[in-house]
């Protein structure tokens, strides 16, 4: 069921199992039949942890999304809702949600029906004092039988990815100075250490990294003497503040998975795609007629595709440069048809049986191939557009430091054409970052252009970007030094058979991943100068293992002989799929000094990242965001 989580060096299925058990513990505390009211935002994440049938086994009879008004408890004609004994709210600690919860409870209390109901609330991932106060203010706190918390912070997305999916993490920490999210990060790290052992080495770069390091060291002191003795499975923790590398998320990702995210947006490892491409693929001609009729109805419902390494084909192509995906797909297609042809050679009964036994596998492979071919086509349509190519070209110029101190005509054109604001801002921020800020005159020119075109209210958003350091007035120029020392820009990238991580952006190596790469070999001392240029403190800490575990480490002639270490890299403020791909690429190298497990507050792309910071949320007029 969760087999795709097992394959990594650190078994994340275990993490999921623990999360599952905790959820069931919460449910089991309320005895009797239950109705669960979900915060909409949580249904996706919880879906990764437990399936409905499991909840059903624990007497969850009904589930509703959290909405103001009456709980539809009695709406069923069968009367199943009538004798629900417990109503459980599972929500994030958001003040605005408390009003809805209170409304629900009060309305339900007004006409209690035949059976008395008990109300419970669980906060994910943690209780908040403010919410509890709010509930008290609203006069329902006393009605609640349980006010608990369900500590689901990191969600296991894949065998090497954990994410909190916290939208506001970056904004809260870097713009508003609210470190709540970092506290959650620290807590999640403590939980990771409780399950997988103390992580002996901690490195980090950035202000938030320092905060988190301080917190986990402190929390460890707090629980002194009660640690469980588990030999460390993770050798090293690397914390990276997103604002250390603001450039990478601004660039258009060019890996397969990255592009899917850029164009369609992946949430909770699932993507919703326009259905047109998928409906017609059915090779049963007899049903063609019906199929066509169905097609008429279908396109309203977007096609959902689960994206994780359980899909063997996807696990191979997800991290490739998109240019390398086409060849791989056609190679697969050839193999598949060859396999299919084998049936003709199968003369003997045993040979046929052998073929039939493989048939299931072949069909699954075929399905997957069809799906990804369709997705690839959809993406190609987009990437072949002139506007896409132009943007890409501008990005390449910026990262090479070409004319970053002049007004860029492509950006100008985009504004003149009134292309989506986010696209403009993304390019503009990139120019500012690669130039360490813009000359005041140029800055004012761009800002004025934007305000005149998109409206005065966007001045507030621009200020937000300024606060984040994405837009600013020119300072000392450090980007060229950083670019050269860390070899961020590579010529002659082999997209088909890459030799360097820069393939993920067809020529640009993400700064954050370079930091990780240098840390693993030869060590950060070699890039001392660059680290000083990057914002925030550099962190190097060691955690002393509990005495019981210390001796066991240096075993002579260790039979496992596994010298590859495991590094947990935690991105504070988000990580992109392209960076994940680059890290995986590093892990897969033959002489890799370390393998990576990735944790983050959210998997981001330039679009949703900027969006989260803007003051007035930009609602794209088109159905799919254009970039």
């Amino acid at each position: 069921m969760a087999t795709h989580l097992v394959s990594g060096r650190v078994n994340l299925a275990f993490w999921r199992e623990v999360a599952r058990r905790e959820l069931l513990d919460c449910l089991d505390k309320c005895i009797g039949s239950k109705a669960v009211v979900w915060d909409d935002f949580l249904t996706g994440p919880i879906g990764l942890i437990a399936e409905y049938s499991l909840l059903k086994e624990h007497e969850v009879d009904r589930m509703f999304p959290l909405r103001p008004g009456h709980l539809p408890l009695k709406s069923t004609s069968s009367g199943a809702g009538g004798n629900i004994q417990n109503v459980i709210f599972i929500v994030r600690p958001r003040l605005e949600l408390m009003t809805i919860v209170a409304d629900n409870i009060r309305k339900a209390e007004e006409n209690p029906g035949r059976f008395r109901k008990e109300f419970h609330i669980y906060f994910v991932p943690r209780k908040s004092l403010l919410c509890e106060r709010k509930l008290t203010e609203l006069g329902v706190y006393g009605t609640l039988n349980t006010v608990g918390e369900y500590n689901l912070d990191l969600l296991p997305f894949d065998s090497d990815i954990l994410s909190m999916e916290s939208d506001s993490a970056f904004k809260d920490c870097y713009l508003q100075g609210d470190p709540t999210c970092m506290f959650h990060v620290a807590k999640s790290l403590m939980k990771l250490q409780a399950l997988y052992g103390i992580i002996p080495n901690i490195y980090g770069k950035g202000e938030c990294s320092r905060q988190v390091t301080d917190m986990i060291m402190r929390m460890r002191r707090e629980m002194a003497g009660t640690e469980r003795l588990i030999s460390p499975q993770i050798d090293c923790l690397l914390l990276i503040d997103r604002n250390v590398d603001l450039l990478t998320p601004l660039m258009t990702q060019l890996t397969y998975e990255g592009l899917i995210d850029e164009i369609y947006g992946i949430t909770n490892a699932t993507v919703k795609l326009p259905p047109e491409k998928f409906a017609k693929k059915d090779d049963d001609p007899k049903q063609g007629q019906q199929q066509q009729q169905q097609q008429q109805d279908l396109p309203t419902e977007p096609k959902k595709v689960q994206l994780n390494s359980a899909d063997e084909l996807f696990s191979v192509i997800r991290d490739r440069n998109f240019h390398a995906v086409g060849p791989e797909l056609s190679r697969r297609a050839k193999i598949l048809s060859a396999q299919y042809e084998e049936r003709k050679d199968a003369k003997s009964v045993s040979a046929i049986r052998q073929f039939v036994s493989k048939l299931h596998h072949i069909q699954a492979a075929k399905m997957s191939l069809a799906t990804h071919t369709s997705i690839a086509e959809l993406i190609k349509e987009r990437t072949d557009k002139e506007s896409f190519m132009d943007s890409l070209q501008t990005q390449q110029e910026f990262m090479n430091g070409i004319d970053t101190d002049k007004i860029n005509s492509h950006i100008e054109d985009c504004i003149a054409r009134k292309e989506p604001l986010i696209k403009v801002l993304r390019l503009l921020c990139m120019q500012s970052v690669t130039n360490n800020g813009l000359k005041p005159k140029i800055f004012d020119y761009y800002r004025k252009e934007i305000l005149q075109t998109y409206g005065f209210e966007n001045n507030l958003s621009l200020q937000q970007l300024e606060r984040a350091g994405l837009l600013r007035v020119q300072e000392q120029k450090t980007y060229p030094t950083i670019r050269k020392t860390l070899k961020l820009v590579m010529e002659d990238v082999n997209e088909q058979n890459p030799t360097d991580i820069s393939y993920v952006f067809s020529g640009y190596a993400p700064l954050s991943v370079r930091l990780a790469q240098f840390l693993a070999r030869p060590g950060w001392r070699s890039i001392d100068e660059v680290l000083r240029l990057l914002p925030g403190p550099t962190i190097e800490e060691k955690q002393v293992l509990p005495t019981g575990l210390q001796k066991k480490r240096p075993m002579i002639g260790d039979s496992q002989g596994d010298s590859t270490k495991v590094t947990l890299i935690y991105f504070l403020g988000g990580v992109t799929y392209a960076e994940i791909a680059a890290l995986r690429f590093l892990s897969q190298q033959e002489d890799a000094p370390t393998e990576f497990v990735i944790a983050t507050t959210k998997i981001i792309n330039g679009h949703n990242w900027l969006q989260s910071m803007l003051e007035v949320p930009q609602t794209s007029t088109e159905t799919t965001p254009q970039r």
Partner: protein
Amino acid sequence: MAHVTGDWNPLGDVFYRKVELYSMDRLWQEVADLRKFKVAVAPFGGPIALMRDSNKITQVRGSSHIVIFIFSAAGKEISRINWDSGNVIHIGWSLSEDLLCIQDDGTVLVYNIFGKYQRNFNMGQESRESKVIESKVFHNTSYGGTGVAVLTGTYRIYVVNDVHNPASRKMMEVPGLDAPPSSWCVIGGDRQNHILLARDKRLYKLDRSDMQQEILETKTKEVNAFIEMAVSFDNRFLALFSDTGLLWIGSSDLQKTYCEFDTSSQMRPRQLVWCGTGAVVGYWENLLLVIGPQKDWIKYNMDTDAVLIPENDSLHILQTHTHELLQRVPGVVEDIFKIGSMAPGAMLYEACREFQKESQKADEYIRMIKDQLSLAVEQCIEAAGAEYEPNSQKLLLRAASFGKCFGTNVNADKFVNMCKLLRVLNAVRDYQIGIPLTYDQLKKLTLTVLMDRLILRRQWALAQQISQYLKLPESEGESRILGHWACYKVEQKHIPDELIAQSIKEKLGDTPGIAYSEIAKKASECGRTQLAVKLLEYEPRAAEQVPLLMTMRDSRTSLRKAIESGDTDLVYMVLLQLKEDLPRGEFLMMLRNHPQAQDLFLQLCREQHPNLLLDLYNQNDNFQELANTAVRDSLTEKNLQKRLDQLNAAQDNYKKAANEFSMKATEEEIKLLGYQQRMQEQYKEQFLYLSLHDTVHKLVAKNLGKMAEQLRKEFKFPDKRFWWLKIDALAGAGEWIELERFAKSKKSPIGYEPFVELCMKHHNKYEANKYAAKVAPEHRVKMYIRMGTLDEAAELAFQQKSEEDLNLVLRQCAGNRQLSAKINTMKQQLGKK
């Protein structure tokens, strides 16, 4: 030295022996005329309480005050209580060594061993009204609790099962009980405690909901009444003594009879108790009779008054001068020391002795037990554990150690453990400490409880040494002991805060897992706030530390600590409290001094208290944010005039904040709104709140070019952007003629591609074609592609001999085989040239 077996007395086929635990302290000897006192002794070698028995007439010396003395098992005085409460019927100890004083009104007062009053509880209304006439304290080892049972003047029995959770329950009544029962006792069970009550010779078994009459037929002698009862420590066995001197021994459920023994004494014994589970001991005036289940007996003469205290494996005999232990000689000890024993352990012991005498016999003995060496070693180790005297322990351990040398794979763990435990046992048995535990008792009691008892007696140093010696986990051992020590320390009010804080820090300094908050709480309870604050400095757990600091009104420290912890919930907790407590101005001032707290508070204000937000910005002269807030408010404002007011205010504040750009932008917005309002009135079209771009766009599209031109000049529209806008607006409105005029009006600053592009955007290929020709030749191929005329694009590219452009076209014609083929031929031709 006399042989070990010298003081052994046979009882059937086992032996019993008396061991002197202590010869009592002088003070005890002066006080303890046991005849005059109620005596209570806690099980497991616990403390002794003495209280003058008012029923016994004695000569009163000094004041007539009643005093309760508390002594250790070795007779050292621990404390005394000046009794000034009611009439005490009975005293007893709980398993957690609390002294229970049961008064005749049913009140039970609880004291600790230092005579400090802890709490009280009551046995119920009825016992208050009809007075308690008899009471018993009992221990139930199956759930590890101590209970109290009382017999009221109405002959009803009330029971509290656990003194820590006192709920008095009434037992079933025995019908027709109009005089005190002949005897009664409490029999502990797994889930419930029963009362066994004798009314003459009839026995009743009672609990809360049930009453059963039991018939016990004695075979050897008539019985008129059972006048004494004794239950064994583990509640499995029972002894009944009848008025005719018959002693019945059987199981506590009365189902089995082990023996009936005729003591031929008509006199009620002063005490009837079990010695472990193997024998019943009756104590008459100067006679101690130990009776085994096989009717065997031993007689001891008693020369002074004594009190018998049953233990789980033995019996303590407390006298004015001595404290003795009566026990069955443990099996292993018997095996080794019994005369003529051939057990391997015995042989090993002999071998060791011979070896020390340098006799070759040692070798002979060892040879005899060659095959059973490990068993022999084990026996010696166990026997050492069962011995009370360090000398015999040493002999046996030496034998075990000697035997180990001959074995090849004898596991040393047992030996080491026993040595360690014996050291601990001998240390706590010491006269100064006075906890005479046997090895079996320690096993039953567990080490943790032993540590508890040492802590209870304030034997910090010994407890500390033991926990270090046995390497107990810190949470059970060291940190707990130090925590308790510190709590005790802060209660000593005569020592100044400074000194206490210093000495606590010195001792506790680097021990992890200390609950400083507990200590601080204690200090706070004692009214030593300053000390508490000092102590809390050391508490690593912010979640414990901050709330306590708050109760002590140390807002500054609590806020600092909360921020340090990174737990924003804690910060909010402090902030909300401070917001209540402090005057507004002071509160805002304090926020200003703590930027992190201020940021968090701002977060809260944005959602909950917009007014406070403004106050904060005002206080901090944060003009930038004041302006932003005004702008933000203006965006949702429906009334134009109000919106303008807000924008004016914003402009003002931007100016104060020296944000020139925003100031100008606001100014422009105000200007734009003015234009929009006028135009809206003039043209009866919706213009308000559009962006400048959209306004001009609309003007162009509505064919109001003049106005558009005016705005363009007013707002310094860049030329290029204006062209883009105008083309798009005209194409969008389908004003193709106007568009063409515009194209010809001047040379386009943005070339002619946008014309093609925007015509195509608005689906007019014909118009687009017009402009395609004007596009510079090198860009024209792209234009054709955009228009979808791929054939022409291909032709053109071929003409221009641009392979790059050909590729561009080729990429677009997926699915168009014919054209693809054509382009490929073109490419080949180009290649040839």
